[in-house]
């Protein structure tokens, strides 16, 4: 799904906004660093796409250099990204995370079907990262970090929001 402007008249509320510093600016962790190839590729691959749940949200890049090659727990990953867990932490495979846009997408929804190749390419790109997965934190508006490690020991990926009441 690509982004369109909202045309809802009512004013929005603060509660739906990101809560951590990294949420407020998902690239905060990488500001001091030059964009890498994978960052640029992820940004390009996700440009204009929306993650659909009960709501919808864009994808934004996240990057943390120099985390090393050792496996990290979900909590360690969030900490490395400068994210304070906001509620329970849940790990999902990328297959499951993107199922709604791919295998389980509604055949009757032409818009979603037209975007399948882009979502497939995005998932495939994320899967080039080591130990790539979705780490979601929160109760209702869950911030989901789709991250893995690069061959040079950096943490790279995307963050979006899944609204699940």
């Amino acid at each position, binding site marked *: 799904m690509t982004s369109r402007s*909202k045309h809802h008249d009512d004013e929005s509320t603060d509660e739906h906004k990101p809560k951590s510093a990294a949420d407020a600016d998902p690239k905060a962790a990488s500001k001091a660093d030059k964009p890498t190839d994978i960052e640029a590729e992820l940004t390009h691959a996700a440009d204009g796409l929306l993650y659909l749940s009960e709501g919808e949200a864009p994808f934004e890049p996240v990057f943390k250099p120099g985390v090393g090659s050792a496996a990290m727990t979900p909590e360690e990953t969030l900490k490395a990204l400068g994210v304070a867990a906001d509620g329970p932490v849940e790990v999902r495979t990328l297959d499951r995370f993107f199922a709604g846009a791919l295998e389980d997408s509604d055949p009757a929804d032409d818009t979603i079907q037209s975007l399948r190749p882009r979502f497939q390419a995005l998932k495939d790109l994320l899967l080039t990262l080591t130990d790539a997965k979705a780490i979601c934190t929160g109760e209702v508006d869950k911030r989901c970090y789709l991250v893995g490690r690069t061959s040079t020991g950096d943490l790279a990926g995307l963050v979006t929001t899944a609204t699940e009441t």
Partner: protein
Amino acid sequence: MARRPRTSSRFPTWLRLVITASIVILGYYLGRDRIIDPVPQPPSRPTRPTPPSAPTAAGPIYRDAIAFGAPVASDDRPSVLIRRPQYTVSYNTKLNVANWVAWNLNASQFGDAPRSSSFTTDPLLPDGAERIVSSDYTGSGYDRGHMVRSEERTRTPAENKTTFYLSNVLPQTHDLNAGPWLNLELFCQSLAQHENRDLYIVAGGMFGSRPKRLNGKVAVPSATWKVIVSLPAGRGLADVHSAGDLRVIAALMPNQTGLLKRPWTDFQTTVDEIERQTGLDLLPTLPDEIERVVEATKG
């Protein structure tokens, strides 16, 4: 072992064969499976108490979603009834959303199945009905608001998927969906799981004469409402003999922003008020004298 003396038959062999064959054929017809409607029909009169609804390994227990009667509209709004074990929908083919959704809720229906990953068109929509898709909501600023909550059908992935049919969804502001509407859903979950109640719920939207539309199709309600009949687990209409035998809770919530932190109780009202605003007669199978009391009272 002593041999029993053989007794001579009074009937010829051919007659014994006919009698035996008749017994076999009769037994087959009496004992064979009957085709049963998977959705139980509401009894015309109370019959007998229903069994308790403790969680079972066998699966969820779905009681009749409209045991307290399908809401009756005071006008001729389009209404296509879609029945499945998980819930019943009265679908409005002009508004492209439900007039109402009714379902039973009890502890047996909660499990650990993962959430479905996508909202999809209801496969039981009648021919000719507009096919509403998830993309119709995209960019609108409205959430895809469940009537039957996803969590309430989590014994299997297949059960859960039914809650993601768009006939079970209304456009709700995020503040409503994630605020008092969710709080009321959590209250219902608590009644079902922790207070061992069987709930009979009906919910829907309230629409003006020219509602806003998403993508030119999906009507946006000005408010969403819910009516909950709460009984001890396993009890139903047959067990209701006075107003004290059931609790009826009603809430009507505006479809606006700015509600996120409001408790659902701020929007509690009477069934009479919802009936007045929606033009629906709710809980029509309750005995009249009980209906008058519970529908005028904030439960």
